């Protein structure tokens, strides 16, 4: 027993059993998975390097954003990278171990006219086995969406939960000279204009079910709410009561909408059916009540109110009348967004330097700033899996869209140059 005495001194374990030594490892040495993403190779002789390069670019961007991986530079790849070996029996895993890789993506493509086939594989280099394999068949124009879909599968294989990359982000852009509604991929590509209102469009929200979008437009001379089917382009004016009809947000089941109306002269939050009938007047205060955001269970709504002076975030019980204040610090807190898992609420706080994005637990504890520095970072919205947050920022002088991880790391601009990009909303899985 006595000979173990020195170990206790060495290791300083306050809670160690007096009788024995024990080793505590309080963080992994490698906190990213070393990943090699090879360029896909032609499967039928027709070489289209630009196809391989684009697929590689898409998945590398997605997987880098995930924060899970450390990407191994292509320059260090050895012979196996240029061999079309897609079976775990044929892959030279020894080579990849030598480079320190623990995960490996290989694949092949075949282009026939407009048609494209992609085979993509994710291997575990350490255990030398296939983790996930996917075959995609479609048009060459679909290549980016195939890449995003595969990246989603890679995340599923390594975390158990699918990624959010094959989704869309809706936003308001002014590239035509009017504020219209647009759609882009999560990496800012494939931009499509959805509306031609030649007016002002604001604050889109995706229906959690079906490819439908809710937004505010001044097209008929008043801020009204519209619903639009994205594929068919069909559109209907949803709420066009006197005064404001803004900030519509679908409940997680898509069956009810919370919105701000000022039909009685003061901005209050109402719950509306899909037929626009008012189910409930949720708030009733002399102050301004705007910006509702549903809890994922649909039992509570976070919103902004200046009932106690400055704009702050409150949470209302949907069933009862109970309203509690969420944010205690800061003079101006706005645009709450409840995370899809329900554990945190993101919002924007105005301080001396401008707006920055924070998250807080729904019980008001553990408030954390996610963004820092000059410029205004506003309108946080969660990815459907809660891993990422999209937001608008004017830190470069242009109103642009950015994505970061839910812990504030990995922020990057996604919108291209030119014009304004505001009011992002993240679609559910597409």
């Amino acid at each position: 027993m006595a000979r173990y005495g020195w170990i206790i001194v060495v290791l300083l374990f306050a809670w160690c059993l007096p009788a024995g030594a024990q080793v505590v490892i309080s963080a992994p040495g490698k906190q990213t998975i070393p990943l090699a993403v090879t360029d896909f190779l032609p499967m039928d002789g027709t070489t289209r390097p630009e196809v391989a390069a684009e697929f590689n670019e898409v998945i590398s961007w997605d997987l880098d954003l995930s924060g899970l991986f450390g990407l191994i530079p292509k320059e260090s790849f050895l012979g196996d990278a240029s061999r079309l070996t897609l079976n775990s029996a044929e892959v030279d895993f020894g080579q990849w171990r030598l480079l320190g890789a623990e995960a490996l993506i290989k694949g092949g493509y075949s282009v026939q006219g407009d048609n494209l086939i992609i085979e993509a594989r994710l291997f575990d280099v350490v255990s030398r086995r296939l983790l996930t394999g996917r075959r995609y068949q479609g048009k060459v124009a679909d290549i980016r969406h195939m890449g995003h879909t595969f990246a989603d599968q890679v995340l599923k294989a390594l975390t158990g939960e699918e990624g959010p990359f094959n989704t869309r982000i809706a936003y308001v852009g002014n590239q035509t000279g009017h504020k219209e509604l647009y759609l882009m991929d999560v990496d800012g590509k494939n931009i499509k204009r959805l509306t031609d209102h030649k007016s002002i469009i604001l604050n889109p929200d995706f229906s959690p079910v079906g490819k439908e979008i809710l937004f505010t437009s001044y097209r008929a001379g008043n801020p009204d709410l519209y619903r639009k089917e994205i594929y068919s382009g069909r559109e209907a004016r949803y709420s066009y009561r006197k005064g404001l009809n803004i900030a519509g947000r679908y409940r997680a089941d898509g069956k009810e909408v919370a919105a701000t109306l000022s039909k009685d002269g003061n901005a209050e939050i109402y719950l509306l059916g899909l037929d626009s009938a008012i189910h409930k007047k949720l708030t009733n205060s002399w102050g301004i009540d705007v910006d509702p955001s549903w809890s994922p269970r649909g039992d509570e709504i976070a919103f902004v109110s200046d009932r106690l002076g400055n704009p702050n975030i409150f949470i209302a019980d949907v069933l009862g009348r109970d309203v509690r204040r969420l944010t205690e610090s800061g003079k101006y807190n706005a645009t709450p967004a409840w995370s899809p898992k329900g554990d945190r609420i993101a919002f924007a706080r105005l301080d001396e330097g401008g707006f920055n994005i924070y998250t807080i637990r729904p019980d008001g504890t553990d408030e954390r700033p996610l963004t820092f520095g000059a410029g205004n970072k506003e309108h946080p919205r969660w990815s459907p899996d809660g891993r990422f947050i999209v937001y608008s920022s004017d830190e470069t002088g242009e109103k642009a869209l950015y994505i970061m991880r839910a812990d504030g790391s990995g922020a990057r601009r996604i919108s291209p140059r030119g014009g304004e990009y505001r009011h992002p909303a993240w679609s559910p899985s597409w």
Partner: protein
Amino acid sequence: MKMQNVGKMMFVAVLAVALMAGCAKKPAPGDTMGTTEMGTTQESSQQDTGFQEQAIQETPSMETTTAGTQIMGLERVFFEFDQYTLTPEARTVLANNAQYMKENPMVKVVVEGHCDERGSDEYNLALGERRAAAAKNFMVSLGVPADRMTIISYGEEIPLDPRNTEDAWAKNRRVEFKAVR
């Protein structure tokens, strides 16, 4: 006089069209979406050619709202940050405006509330509405009939001065009076 009558007629016509468009609404969309598979081909064909859109697009109401003509004789009033209370200067301006309205009994106006770009957009929409309502209510208290003024808020969407300076922000926190055509 004549002009204003024509404007009134057009306004009524616009309202009628808007109402008809509203009534002619299809049942809520959502039931008819058959395809859910990925494909840019489908997306590219959905370039927003909804029939209902065209029906309203012709109406002149848009120009009134986003590019309405300022009426000579009705001045803008300005506000403090995050405030909708009328400053003494604003009251003086509004008194002049009320005088003008009483001298021109056929004039109908839209009272537009605006905010600077700081602050949440949606909160600013509500704030702009309060500014417009404050201006309108003050003029009503001076004897201008309420039915000659309608209010609308544009939040921070139509700044007078798009720059990111204290001066620009001060200019943008305003209420404007636009002619109803």
